[in-house]
């Protein structure tokens, strides 16, 4: 039915490789392009050049895979390929997550459709590690070329109990890819009976975004998490361990839709990041206490909202430790402006 097709919920034939050309079904090691739905596999195979029945006017136009395949179905096994995967893939690569890579087609000819509207952009987010865990903070303004589309959008999204991700770029892309990442991490946890490390989650996200490189997808996320078991958490918060960051299970990794994946101790992303960096670089050190770290993160976001037009409204702050993430109450920065004005006024009174 046409409507079922549009909804993407049709039942593909059980064993598509019976109807596909012989060459495809005898390549089990090249299984990466068999997943991602039997339908697209079939569509691709019938458009191979040099096939008998094609008239000279029907030339092969490589369609950009991403334009036909929904990003939501990424990594998902459909009804048919689930069976083929059980037969062929699982016994060869039991621990690989099911990633669907597009077949090696040449560059897409069809240009993307010009949009009559703009998508939300502009932000300040930051994340850093210290002896007491990881702090992730962000502002809450979501702007859309001059209009504040939402003054209270959450930019720090929890992915699972010990992993939090800050988002920057197009808010729809960030929200949806975070959901897809949460789903994949949960599946990994169910299949392998352990949580995937932050580095692993970052690699997974980076590889999932890779097929969309060059498109207008824009995701710049900082994954902040705590790896390792909760029982092993005996990292003392005394100054003796102040110079031993390698004992820590914290991990901060910046992942970008361009393909960049960087591990580090301190990151700030977004249009307000230069202002946040100046505060963070001067004040963050490994041995700081939790209150100090919270205050510095909040101050950094506040200074960025002060100077950057595209950041503003509130501050969201998350603190990740061995016990999981904890969310600090969302604070409206409007009061902070007035408090600062008051302090300035008092200072001027004292000076004269």
């Amino acid at each position, binding site marked *: 039915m046409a*409507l079922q097709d*549009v*909804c*993407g*919920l049709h039942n593909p034939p059980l064993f598509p490789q019976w109807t596909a050309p012989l060459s495809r079904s005898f390549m089990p090691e090249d299984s990466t392009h068999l997943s991602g739905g039997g339908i697209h596999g079939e569509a691709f195979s019938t458009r191979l050049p040099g096939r008998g029945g094609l008239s000279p006017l029907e030339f092969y136009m490589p369609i950009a895979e*991403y*334009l036909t395949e*929904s*990003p*939501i179905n990424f990594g998902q096994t459909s009804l048919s390929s689930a069976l083929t995967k059980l037969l062929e893939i699982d016994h060869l690569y039991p621990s690989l997550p099911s990633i669907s890579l597009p077949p090696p087609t040449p560059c897409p000819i069809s240009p*993307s*459709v*010009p*949009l*009559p*509207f*703009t*998508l*939300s952009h502009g932000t300040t987010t930051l994340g850093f590690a210290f002896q007491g865990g990881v702090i992730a903070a962000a502002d809450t303004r979501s702007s*859309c070329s001059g*209009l504040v*589309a*939402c003054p*209270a*959008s*959450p930019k720090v999204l929890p992915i699972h109990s010990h992993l939090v991700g800050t988002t920057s770029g*197009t*808010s*729809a*892309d*960030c*929200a*949806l890819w975070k959901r897809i990442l949460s789903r994949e991490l949960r599946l990994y946890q169910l299949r392998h009976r352990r949580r995937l490390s932050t580095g692993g989650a970052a690699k997974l996200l980076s590889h999932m975004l890779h097929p969309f490189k060059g*498109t*207008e*997808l824009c995701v710049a996320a900082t994954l902040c998490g705590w790896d390792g078991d909760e029982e092993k958490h005996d990292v003392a918060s005394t100054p003796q361990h102040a110079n031993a960051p390698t004992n820590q299970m914290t991990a901060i990794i910046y992942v970008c839709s361009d393909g960049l994946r960087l591990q580090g101790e301190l990151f700030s992303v977004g249009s307000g990041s230069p202002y946040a960096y100046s505060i963070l670089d001067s004040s963050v050190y490994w041995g700081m206490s939790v209150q100090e770290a919270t205050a510095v993160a909040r101050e950094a976001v506040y200074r960025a909202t002060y100077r950057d037009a595209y950041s503003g409204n509130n501050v969201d702050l998350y603190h990740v430790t061995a016990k999981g993430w904890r969310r600090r109450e969302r604070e409206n920065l409007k009061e902070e402006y007035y408090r600062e004005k008051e302090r300035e006024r008092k200072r001027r009174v004292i000076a004269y």
Partner: protein
Amino acid sequence: MMMSAQAYGDKGKMKEYHYTGPVEHKFSPYAFNGGTVLAVAGEDFALVASDTRLSEGYSIHSRDSPKCYKLTDTTVIGCSGFHGDCLTLTKIIEARLKMYKHSNNKNMTSGAIAAMLSTILYGRRFFPYYVYNIIGGLDEEGRGAVYSFDPVGSYQRDTYKAGGSASAMLQPLLDNQIGFKNMENVEQVPLSLEKAVQLVKDVFISAAERDVYTGDALKICIITKEGVREEIVPLRKD
């Protein structure tokens, strides 16, 4: 009939009519049909209101084309933007609701519909539905809920939201009257149903004054635990 997007600036407003040089007109699959949608959530009710004008460029196609669509007894969706995509999107949502009902033997909750709509919209990330959606309804506990979307599926739960052509005019007014933003020394009483309906009527009358794409009539869908009730109020027709 769809005119090329080159003739339009952003938001469907016509560009200045003077000769700037040869212009290449490309076919655009989108058109802007105007309209404003508004939703407000209260303690135990939700309102979804829209005007009923369908326009394109300098013409009015219809004065009786409301933009609220009832999905279930507890949820109403308002869609504005490109009318073709609004119609297809509501058809898809209704089909998905039926499928859910048949496989799970219960109706979808407002939160579930919002999450589903987000994935439907993102499925077309590279050729989006040009629709600004706002869902209004009651959540599982009977409290009012409003979910606002952007055209590619980013959404969140709000207390009130305006979308469509007059959204930039209405949203600040709602921020002040319902959100009590930037008001000093004011008693923040929760909104009652009668006050909310009156506010929505006033707000649309103001929008019709200043936005050419909003007018003709206002349709308000009031969602309470008794069900969905509709009210139609005339607006400026010029």
